[in-house]
């Protein structure tokens, strides 16, 4: 599974009642399109920390504007 697919799975798990897989395009904006707030971002961080076995600062939310940018951030972190 690619990082992008993993991020989509995590967001689907997080927002399961409010979105469908069709909403999860790479360019989907996490705040404006998928309606993530600060509590959702923190849960996404927790899920991503578990899935990728890394520690992620809460400020990383600022770099994760879209599904694609979230995947790119995680790729960058896991490549180190």
């Amino acid at each position, binding site marked *: 599974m690619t990082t992008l697919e993993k991020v989509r799975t995590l967001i689907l798990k997080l927002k399961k009642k409010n979105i469908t897989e069709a909403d999860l395009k790479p360019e989907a904006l996490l*705040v404006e399109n998928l*309606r*993530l*707030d*600060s*509590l959702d*971002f*923190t*849960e996404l*961080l*927790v899920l991503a920390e578990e899935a990728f076995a890394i520690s992620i*600062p*809460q*400020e990383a*939310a*600022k770099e994760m504007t879209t599904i694609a940018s979230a995947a790119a951030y995680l790729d960058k972190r896991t490549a180190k």
Partner: protein
Amino acid sequence: MLEEMFQIVAVGKNNAHHVGAVFRTLYGEDFPVKDVYQPDVLWREIQAEKLTAALALTAEGHPAGYISFFKSAPNFRLWEAGNMLVDPAYAQSDVALELARYYFDPTMCRLTDSDGIFSEAVCCHYFTQVSAIKSGFADCALELDQLDGASFKDGKSNKAGMARVSCVLNFLELSDPVESVYFPDRYNEYLRRLAAPLRPRTFLASTAALPVAGDTVREDKYYDFAKTWKVAVRSIGGDWTTVVEKLLAEAVRRQVVSLQVVLNTACPAIGEATELLRRNGFFFGGLAPRWFGTDGVLMQQLFGGEPDYEETKLYSPTAKELMAFIREDRETGR
């Protein structure tokens, strides 16, 4: 997150009226701690150094969030970080992060001259737990079913609709403990593990028998709106058995859901006192660092239904292990 500039400013006489405005965005007039709606009361508390608080203001000066530190433990050199609130209109901004950065950094909120800061992070979401852990706080205790789930009004922070919400007590120690602490034999090893991330302290074995004379000295805080009763036992007297019996009878009369008893580790008989609590249905809660100046040991009892363990969100490995330990202690004590 939507990036927007916020200024974090201390609450003072001239802006205390904004605090009520933030709470009204979520609770209307229903927030149970009525002080937040009364600027004069807030200002008096601040002047008396019982409260220090801050507002997040937008570039236009509109209040978007609030945080506070207050004195709720018997040790007045401890601050509790609590009542962090964000106007729902700014829930998708990074104001919560800005507030959390202030909240968990004692140099920013100028609380360094204290024994420590603790928070009771709710377990219906991860935000406060994550902020605390990433700021160097240590998870020390788990207060099961402490809050009424219905009190979460925003529809987001208690997404699972839990009837009761547990809290993780986390702690940042800011001074060196002076006195030795007695730990109950039953929980000695586990308490030492919980204390490991804190500053060094000297542990003694609690082998003393319960005192035969003297009165138990305690301080009570009863939160009727949450049906939670917190009892801090500063010293254990010869009346301990009677005190426990009366506590239980009164808890039933008040229809308490969560009864929490914190015992002072300065008491050499804490081991026997803990065993007596356990024989009366109490189970382990964790360590309450510096609660009395010396540490406290939390014992708790629930009078409602079973906690919703599946929906309880715990972030740190320590908190997850603590939950498992507490469940086992509760089961074996029944």
